[in-house]
């Protein structure tokens, strides 16, 4: 990937397109952990692609590309929330309760949505995208202890859900 990043930094639109396309799964999953509507996810990802294209020159080391891109994506997601906010929010990332009724990705979506909102993003960033705790801490402007406790709570939540499932059976 570093070679692609460096080519993109030199202004190669094909390299940039290939680079960002290789990140579509990661971008979608992270954005979907924050935003509930695919319309908003589409906006956030598109804004991120443009921002990355314009400012890739400011990225000092190609090896930090994913962290840098993900941070931009997270900010773009929060902008979407802010744009769509007609009333006050009760949590950092509000749940609008609007659920898309699509059959594709239903198992993935249901699995993600089974977590309380506040654990979703850290779980995705750590367990799915493979970021380290200090990287997540910087991306989310969150103390490392908080990242660890949310991961722990997310795991406990999974364990509790599994226990309830077994007891229910």
């Amino acid at each position, binding site marked *: 990937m570093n070679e692609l990043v460096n080519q993109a*930094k*030199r*202004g190669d639109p*094909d390299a*940039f*397109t290939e680079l*960002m396309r290789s990140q*579509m*799964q990661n971008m*979608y*999953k992270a954005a979907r952990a924050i935003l509930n509507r*695919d*319309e908003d*996810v*589409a*906006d956030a*990802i*598109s804004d991120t*692609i*443009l*921002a990355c*294209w*314009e400012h890739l020159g*400011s990225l000092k080391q190609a090896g930090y590309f994913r962290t840098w891109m993900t*941070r931009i994506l997270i*900010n773009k997601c*929060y*902008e979407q*929330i*802010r*744009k769509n906010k*007609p*009333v*006050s*929010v009760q949590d*950092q990332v509000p749940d609008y309760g609007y659920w898309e009724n699509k059959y*594709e*990705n239903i198992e*993935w979506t249901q*699995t*993600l949505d*089974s977590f*309380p909102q506040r654990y979703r993003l850290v*779980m*995705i960033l750590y367990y*799915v995208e493979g970021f380290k705790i200090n990287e997540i801490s910087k991306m*989310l*402007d*969150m*103390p490392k*202890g*908080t*990242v660890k*406790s*949310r991961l*722990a*709570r997310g795991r406990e939540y*999974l*364990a509790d*859900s599994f226990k309830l499932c077994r007891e229910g059976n």
Partner: protein
Amino acid sequence: MKKNKAMYTLQQDVKIPDIVETKASQTFARIQREARTGNEKIIVYDKKIRSPKKKYAVLAMIAVLAVGTVSVYAAYINWSQGLKEELQITQEQQESLQENGMAAFADTSVTDAGITVSAQQSITDNYYTYLSFKVEGYHLEDGKQPDFENVFVTVDGKEDFNSGSSFYNGIIAGNDGMGVYADGSALETRADGSTIQHYVMDDGSMEYHMVLAKSDEKGYFIGKKLHVEFKNLGTVAKAEYFPDITGKWDLDMTLGGADTSTIIQTDEKIGDTGRTLTSVELSPVSIRVSYDADQEAQVEEVPMPTGLVLKDGTKLEGVYGGPGSSGMDGSKYICTYAFERVIDPDQVAAVLIPKNLEGSAEGQDTDYYQVAIQ
């Protein structure tokens, strides 16, 4: 579901929804097209952060820009009407924010494609900075939502902070946390159920507001150099950005700011939660609270205070404006967030902490712990 199966499921590739794929493809196509035609407005690489060409003393700022006509004036105090409304800033609070250095003013503007974007002011504390930019010359159709296609911000050349921004829509938070218009009247809706938003001010201009946040480094924004790039102006609806004006507006400004926070040490237990509120750091625009937690409660998250009670008895239930952050830091649990309005820290008697971590059910009043702090 099985723990491992859940993780396995999350790790599997998903089908990118059509709406996401289509919009991304359109964006890539545009980049390809503009790169191949050599459009200078898209391709900027190895861009050095420009230093201000001129500096003005006193309360602010300024420096200059890239494309289009530049006007630079000596700074003078010119409160942003939108920021005054959105943050519900009284005349007395304006004077106080000026006096203590939190409010800083700019009067630099850039004109491109017939649109003038002006940096108006900033309000900065230890963890947040609110910014306001005036946008003139754009004709917004009724019922449309304006937006820049792209906004890029650095502070001292760095991007390691969180941010949120949008055009001010004339809606503010009432004391119960619900939205009302700036004059206090109830929100109105169109026939299709959408809320009527007022983006255009009385003088025909619009305002673009930003909040930048960095809660893990005290004083991060104070006195720093801000660089903002706005690119293209149009409208947004659902998943689409509809381009209208092709232009670029770059502005540099120096933030003001001051550490004016009041830190109240307290030892108030929060009901029967096993948690104790140990300190509250209040500034006119943000709050940072610290809790102790006993061993059992440590792994549980504590709901953050979402409201305040003033000494005159006024209850402000929805003061969360965001961005915010919360979580364990060593043996303490820390919550920090920006207010949705300016407050007088010395008038705060108590914080309101929701009893239910998930919030109240729709239509029901929220039940709070009221924790006295002064």
